[in-house]
């Protein structure tokens, strides 16, 4: 049995950075559970694809990890902490351990690439010194060192997604959640984004990526968890996309 603190199961070390333990989520308006009795363990430093058709429950898993939603049944752990039992004031602490990237980039249109990335540090009260050091460093990492002063509309889709990744990674999170990060990009650009995510993964950051992109999944040959109708139908290391299609 895993060790527990304060007997509240708020903190459990399972050796996994992400753990879903028989988790079911039923939305108030939903006729059936979005996910049902899902159990997943993801170790530190893993790169995992979460695949499945629209409505299969991929986004629900990501929302549960971010504590955007609470599980109806079961437990969700991130870095050993029971996310469902976190007090409200502890939620920001959890989210600082998780970086997020979305299909639609979600950049602030009136801020430059630099300011978009710096924003993520400003709002968690990082010092100007840290910001001045960390932002150019991460922009360099994502390949945008010469484009820091560009506005989002002056950047291509791929470059905008790189800014979004830089913003998600600038605080060096433990986990990077990517929800269809290549959904709006052409195959070549998608390949570049995947190389970047791989590079980030090599720094020790766990990457959990929800995707529909079979080419990427097939090319990367990483662990694949497939959801169908809210149930895990496949959990395969070095998997490909199309086994059950």
């Amino acid at each position, binding site marked *: 049995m895993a060790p527990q603190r304060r007997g509240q199961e708020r903190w459990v070390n399972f050796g996994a950075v992400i753990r879903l333990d028989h988790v079911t989520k039923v939305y108030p308006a939903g006729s059936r559970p979005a996910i049902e009795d899902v159990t997943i363990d993801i170790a530190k430093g893993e790169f995992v694809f979460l695949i499945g058709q629209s409505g299969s429950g991929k986004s629900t898993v990501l929302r549960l990890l971010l504590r955007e939603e609470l599980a109806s049944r079961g437990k969700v752990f991130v870095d050993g902490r029971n996310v469902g039992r976190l007090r409200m004031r502890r939620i*920001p602490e959890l*989210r600082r351990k998780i970086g997020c990237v979305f299909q639609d980039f*979600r950049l*602030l249109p009136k801020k430059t690439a630099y300011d978009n990335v710096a924003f993520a540090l*400003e*709002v*968690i009260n990082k010092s100007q010194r840290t910001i001045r050091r960390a932002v150019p460093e991460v922009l360099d990492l994502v390949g945008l060192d010469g484009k820091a002063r560009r506005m989002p509309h002056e950047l291509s889709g791929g470059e905008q997604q790189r800014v979004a990744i830089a913003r998600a990674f600038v605080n060096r999170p433990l986990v990077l959640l990517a929800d269809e990060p290549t959904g709006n990009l052409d195959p070549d650009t998608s390949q570049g984004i995947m190389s970047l995510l791989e590079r980030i993964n090599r720094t020790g950051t766990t990457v959990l990526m929800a995707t529909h992109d079979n080419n990427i999944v097939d090319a990367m040959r990483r662990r694949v968890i497939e959801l169908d109708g809210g149930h895990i139908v496949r959990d395969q290391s070095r998997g490909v996309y199309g086994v059950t299609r």
Partner: protein
Amino acid sequence: MRASFVMSGVGQGLRRNVLMSIALIMITFVSLYFLGGSLLTSKEIDKFRQKYEDKLNVSIYLCGPTKNDTCKRPFTAAQKQQLQARLSSDPRITNVKFLSQQEIFKNNPDYLGPKNSDLLSPSDFPNEFVVKLKDLKKDYTAVATRYATAPGVEAIQSQDESLKTILGIFDSSRVGALVFALVVLIAAVLLMAITIQVAAAQRRNETNIMRLVGASRWMTQIPFVLEAMITAVIGGVLTVPALWFSKTYVLNGIFGHSVSHGVLPDLSVNDVLVASGESAAVGIVLAIVTAYVTLRAYVRL
């Protein structure tokens, strides 16, 4: 938390909704102006009471030549002497003074206004005893009942009654201003709540990102709370000249003659500043509470 970062966000927010910000400042100003007006009127009432409370007397008017239900003939010297003796021995009375018609006429030459002084003569005034009670409010009724039927007495009147009229006018305007202030304050609070909801909807992308990167709830709320607070502060600052102008117009304009003759007490700059400050404090607290409650109840941050 870096103040410059937060304040630049606040500035952007106010500029983004500039028309709504102006509307909010105006309605906050109007509500705080009426609240301040009500507080200032209360101050005037207090000063008025303080000025006159120790000086209020009871007038016991004696019968004159005019016949009526209580007076069949003018009072006699014996009646006056007897009454004076009774009044002087009454433990509730601290001072008794007789004022003749001539004395009253002499003291009030402009009773009907400076231009009409020749219309009056001493015989137009009644002879009276001016009596000071230990406790006017407590003893007036008992004293009035006891001496109303004394021989040679026509009527008894407390000067408090005369004051009640003018105090009533002030009090009505105070209550009116307070009611109006409350109504406009409610409108201001509702407008503030709507403005915050609109601003939060406009900045949903920004606040979503703040949430996702781990900003505290306080950090996501503070720009909205500060914006509401700033509009309340501006509204509060505007009430200072507005209240000063109103005070000057009413007390030094409409009631200027009474104020300059010392009948009505004047209000100082300090009184205006205190009333403005108090109403601004109410506005600022309301703005903070409204912003906080709105954000918690209607906006997911």
